[in-house]
């Protein structure tokens, strides 16, 4: 039997898997698509650790910066745990062979790692590998996981968790290659399924498959999710393709200028502030550009070759001598499945959550650049070790019955129902609704409008189904379930945004533009729109 079932093959899943395997657990990593199809590979800027390699820094300053950006909604204990784990996380990555950019002068071990400043940081704190930090982290973790003999299963779509009397006993998947529903029984399960930026589709830096599958699985089993209203917009995505241009571009000295050629914001303020400032310029009819020209081609090639290539390929500009047109787009879901300090999902046994899927209360209302790569590594380790430990305590944990039947009849229903509406068009409609009405700036009227429009789509869902009828290698099934999940999460995000009648971090209400101390709590939501507030 599997000791630790890890669902998700991004950095969070692999960090958990490797650490569980080091505890001698039998680990299986399951991925919705190809293993490398995740957001860790897309992370560019860096991973935070107050090493002080370049300038004076301290764990306390890292904690302060993180809490400040979180606007009162991060847990000081969890932030302390995160920041204190940072050095260990870098040492772990170093031991896996991650190629970091190094300082010119030779130094011992991680003291030689170069560091750069990202937004909201009081020091040069982000360790990086050019602007391929996440890519390099993922691949070294993958190599390390191969060394540990971890088993991988690709193209496995999560349909549901297997839950009996509050105990999670594995999960049910649609095996895309074989076209079959499969149960994987496990002593412990780790959800590392990522965020739900797919709600905004092409107005997001996320892959289309980012549909909060872990959140929906928890909701389906009576669990709660929290802080969904806090969706981070990244200030600098390419204008025509929404492809991410890393914060490191500003960290290394890049400017933001409008079509009058004027700078209009402190480029290294936290992302929520910069994104709103960019949005305001666009609303007032001016274009916004990232200006890297003064940095010089040589420096750009050394520090951010990827940004240069992306701007050239997808925007048709040479960033070393031309302005790069940008816009803010959705980047990260701060909210997720609430976990405790062991990364256990609140309300479930033998189930852990890590990464963007989790709400470990370290980002609060706004995440700092460089803290998510840190979270996946540091908290991935905690999740992996605890899951392996827990698995040792469990002798036998087979489900009392097979849970395939329900999933199978649902799948058959979606295959066989008459279809009148193309769900891909509905998915685009959903993204438009969210970008327009649940965007950087919201208000009561826009959110109510979004709710009505989402309800319409939910009613139309009856006329949507799986259009490709083939059994094997049917990606249409994956796209359909992803859309179904997003449509399930959509009203919860809107409800959370409606309930929070204030502005805080990434959640900005034009009708309540100020932060209000009475909302100093997390909004927890369950399925069927049952609401209550957790006043922690």
């Amino acid at each position, binding site marked *: 039997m599997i000791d630790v079932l890890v669902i998700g093959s991004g950095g969070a899943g692999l960090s958990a898997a490797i650490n569980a395997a080091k505890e001698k657990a039998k680990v299986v990593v399951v991925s919705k698509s*190809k293993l490398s*199809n*995740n957001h860790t*590979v897309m992370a560019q800027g860096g991973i935070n650790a107050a090493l002080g390699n370049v300038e004076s820094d301290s764990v306390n300053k890292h904690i302060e910066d993180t809490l400040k950006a979180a606007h009162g909604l991060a847990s000081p204990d969890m932030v302390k745990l995160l920041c204190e784990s940072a050095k260990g996380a870098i040492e772990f990555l170093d031991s896996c062979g991650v190629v970091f950019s190094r300082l010119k002068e030779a130094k011992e071990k991680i003291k030689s790692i*170069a560091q750069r400043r990202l937004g909201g940081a009081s020091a040069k704190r982000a360790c990086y590998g050019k602007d391929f930090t996440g890519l390099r982290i993922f691949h070294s973790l993958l190599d390390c996981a191969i060394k540990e003999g971890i088993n991988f299963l690709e193209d496995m779509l999560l349909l549901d968790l297997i839950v009996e009397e509050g105990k999670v006993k594995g999960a049910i998947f649609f095996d895309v290659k074989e076209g079959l529903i499969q149960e994987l029984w496990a002593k412990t399960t780790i959800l590392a399924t990522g965020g739900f930026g797919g709600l905004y589709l092409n107005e997001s830096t996320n892959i289309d498959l980012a549909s909060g599958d872990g959140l929906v699985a928890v909701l389906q089993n009576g669990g709660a999710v929290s802080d969904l209203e806090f969706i981070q917009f990244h200030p600098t995505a390419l204008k025509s393709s929404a492809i991410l241009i890393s914060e490191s571009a500003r960290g290394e000295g890049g400017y933001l200028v409008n079509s009058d050629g004027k700078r209009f914001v402190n480029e290294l303020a936290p992302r929520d502030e910069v994104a709103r400032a960019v949005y305001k310029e666009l609303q007032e009819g001016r274009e916004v550009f990232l200006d890297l020209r003064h940095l010089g081609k040589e420096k750009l090639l050394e520090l951010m070759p990827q940004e240069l290539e992306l701007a050239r390929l997808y925007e048709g500009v040479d960033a070393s001598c031309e302005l790069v047109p940008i816009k803010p787009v959705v980047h990260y879901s701060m909210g997720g499945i609430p976990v405790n300090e062991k990364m256990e999902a609140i309300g479930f046994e033998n189930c852990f959550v890590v990464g963007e899927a989790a709400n470990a209360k370290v980002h609060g209302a706004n995440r700092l650049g460089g803290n998510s790569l840190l979270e996946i590594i540091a908290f991935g380790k905690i999740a992996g070790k605890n899951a392996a430990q827990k698995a040792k305590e469990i002798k036998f944990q087979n489900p009392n019955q097979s849970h395939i039947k329900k999933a199978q009849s649902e799948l058959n229903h979606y295959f066989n129902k008459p279809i009148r509406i193309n769900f891909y068009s509905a998915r685009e409609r959903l993204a438009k609704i969210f970008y327009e009405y649940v965007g950087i700036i919201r208000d009561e009227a826009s959110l109510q409008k979004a709710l009505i429009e989402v309800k319409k789509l939910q009613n139309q869902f009856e006329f949507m189904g799986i259009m490709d009828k083939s059994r094997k290698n*049917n990606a249409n099934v994956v796209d359909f379930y992803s859309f179904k999940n997003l449509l399930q999460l959509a009203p919860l995000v809107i409800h959370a945004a409606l309930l929070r009648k204030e502005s805080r971090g990434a959640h900005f209400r034009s009708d309540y533009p100020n932060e209000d101390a009475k909302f100093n709590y997390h909004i927890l939501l369950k399925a069927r729109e049952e609401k209550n507030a957790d006043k922690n």
Partner: protein
Amino acid sequence: MQIKIKRGDEFKAYKIEKAKLLLEALLEIKHNIDYTLAFDYGCKSKVCGTCAVRVNGKETLACAHRIKDGDEVEPLRYEKHLKDLKVEQASIQKIAQTQGYLHEFCEYTMDAQDEAKNDIQSDCILCSSCFSACPVLEVNQNFAGPYALTRAYRYAVDKREANAKSIIEAVQKDGVWDCTLCGECTLVCPKGIDPKSDIMQLRNISAQHGYFDPNFSNNFGGFDPNFTF
């Protein structure tokens, strides 16, 4: 504009209205014309390594290829073909074969120059383009292939590796000596990595560890005096 996509044994033509990049064209087809078209994609920005295909006989990432009228699109070669443009990559098995990972971490000091030794190699996105372009795989499916050897090189020259010898040992059979140094892998790499050069370097390091080209001994040292034409 019209592009052709290999489906089953035949190419099927599709009229493309809006798309400029191949990935956009594939999505246009899948969302509007034929929902059954199978292909993988993810980041749309050249880092997830899932959308590599062959266009007019040359490997490329669908997210980075500008389509031209008459383009012929096929799946990658030598991987297990699943459907249309979708293949199952052998990357886990191939990396396990060359043991392309850090074997034994050691104390070290490092500077920017040390890092430069395996800087570009660590940008590999595992798209398998080089694998599909490699003529050796056509005759020897056990050959490790370019990216897995580049991985081995990337760790073997890392200052943090205390046991490079075990990596070198792993690339002897169906590895460095089976490469023909044709350079097709280098030509198709979307990240500018040069596996051919990495393989040549691995041969040099192999020699330093006392390994030599088994073919060399067969061709010359193993010359059969009774052999006649």
